[in-house]
């Protein structure tokens, strides 16, 4: 089953200086269970691609289906619901909500969805990313970067999404912690989650099973690496 399918997607930004083509006729499809990296220099359209897959933005032309659902022409509320239910975000700067404790951050998407049992599920997720319950009572600013990113991964998993989207997840971490986070992502992938990582770090790409390389808004080639 294809969890992500982009067919001839073009994204044009209208800027005062003229229009900029961030994505140029890009077609990408990603099967469920993959561990994918998207690489490319800055300005190559990585972030735009990520935003479109993450239902944060819609294409100017072309068809996009996420988790089997066509997102063309969806309104803000429907895109929000897709983000809540089908996508888990992991950011470079962790981006936990500062007023919530680590555990509450994980529970928040479940509460948003209106599901019961967020208490129990939150604790299970916290444990699964290797943070003990006591630490879970802390606010994000009382945690280390690695701990925050673990919590962020647990938060991304909260509503059992089809895809985890990670934007430079190790960009703010030291080498050792980066490795731990990549291992955690790998394990998550092995438990059946599709993971898409945007990075310009080849070491990160080494962990993934498939890499898309973006240059000037085009998918230039596909590199398979088997590690």
């Amino acid at each position, binding site marked *: 089953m294809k969890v992500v399918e982009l067919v001839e997607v073009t994204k044009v930004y209208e800027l005062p200086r003229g229009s900029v083509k961030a994505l140029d006729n890009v077609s990408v499809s990603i099967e469920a269970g993959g561990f994918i990296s998207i690489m490319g220099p800055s300005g190559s359209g990585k972030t735009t691609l990520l935003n479109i897959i993450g239902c944060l933005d819609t294409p100017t032309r072309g068809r996009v289906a996420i988790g089997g659902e066509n997102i063309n022409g969806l309104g803000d509320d429907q895109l*929000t619901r897709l983000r809540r239910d089908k996508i888990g975000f992991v*950011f470079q700067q962790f*981006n936990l909500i500062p007023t919530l404790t680590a555990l509450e951050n994980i529970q928040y998407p479940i509460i*948003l*969805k209106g599901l019961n049992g967020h208490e129990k599920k939150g604790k299970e997720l916290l444990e699964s990313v290797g943070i003990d319950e006591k630490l879970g009572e802390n606010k994000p600013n009382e945690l280390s970067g690695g701990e925050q990113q673990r919590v962020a991964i647990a938060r991304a998993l909260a509503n059992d999404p089809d895809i985890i989207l990670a934007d430079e997840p190790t960009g703010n971490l030291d080498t050792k912690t980066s490795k731990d986070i990549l291992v955690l992502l790998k394990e998550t992938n092995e438990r059946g989650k599709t993971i898409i990582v945007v990075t310009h770090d080849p070491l990160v790409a080494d962990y993934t099973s498939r890499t898309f390389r973006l240059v000037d808004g085009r998918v230039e080639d596909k590199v398979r690496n088997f590690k």
Partner: protein
Amino acid sequence: MIFFKFAKRNLARHKFRSVLAVIGIVIGVLAITALGILGNSVRLAASEQLCMIGNELVVFPYGGGTISEDDFERIEKVADAIPVRSSVDKVILNGESTLVMIYGMRSKDIPKLMEKEDGQFLKHGSLNCLVGSRLADNYELRVGERASIESQKPRIVGILKERGIGFDISPDNAIIISDKMFSSLYDSSTGYNSVIVKVDNIEDVEEVREEIEDRLNKKEEVVMVMELKMIVEGIKELFNTISVFLLGIGAISLLVAGVSILNVMMMSTVERTKEIGVMRAIGTSRSGILRMFLFESLILGAFGGVIGAILGFGAGFLVDVLILKEVSYLFAPSSIFYVFLGIAFGIGTSVLSGLYPAWRASKLKPIEALRYE
């Protein structure tokens, strides 16, 4: 309610700023409540001292003089009329000499205008007298004692209830005697000093007044008809104007508070742009963001409103005790109304001020908000 929880914690993040915003609302609500209670207490105090009967007309002779018996009969044909003679004279009460208003009235008319506190009313053609409540208090007069007017020494048979300053008669500091007694003391052949007309239905006051004027002022101006309804309404309007003016002052301070809340909330939305982006990215709807910010302004308003109303009530208490020397006005429903009005205005101003920042925050595009540093 997750967004309410967010609102509480967000306010707690900047305690000092939140407290300042609340203080603004407190001052506004304090002003509205205290000034409202003050205005209302003054109005209550005044209406307690003024006898405001709306369904009466008072007929005075035009340009001085008196109203003749003939003219009185013409008035009586239009409506129930009470002729009043009055004079000011030196009276000796309990051995003290003082100048007092003396009313001469038909004994059957007295109960129509006054109530008695003690004793009884005058019988027809009685040579006794009634005294007003203040006069009785000031000179420690009791039923059975005698007053001394000119050559006569009428016995006090009744003490009247307090009535307040009236536009028709003001008996509190006066002595009431029968028309017969009045005639024996003063030259009454000239006529009446005024005629009080009681109109059964307050709606007909205007009509009755016009008819009296038509009948009596046909050839020349003989009488002047004063409509108590108009005076009563004029006074009520005056007090309403004072109340509105005082509330206006309070409203201005609330307006200032509203601007400060607007400022605080705008600052908050800008500071939290990235956070809003994250919340939106992980699935928070626009309405969720909107609610979060509205709850924040609601909490500020509710705190400010309640604290301000309590302080305003306290200030109203001080004013009533120190200036009006009467606490009962404070607990009148019309005073308590201002406590709730203050709270409502405080919350209303706050929520209204939060509306625009909340709307703006909810309209942020998630990708742009996420990029904000």
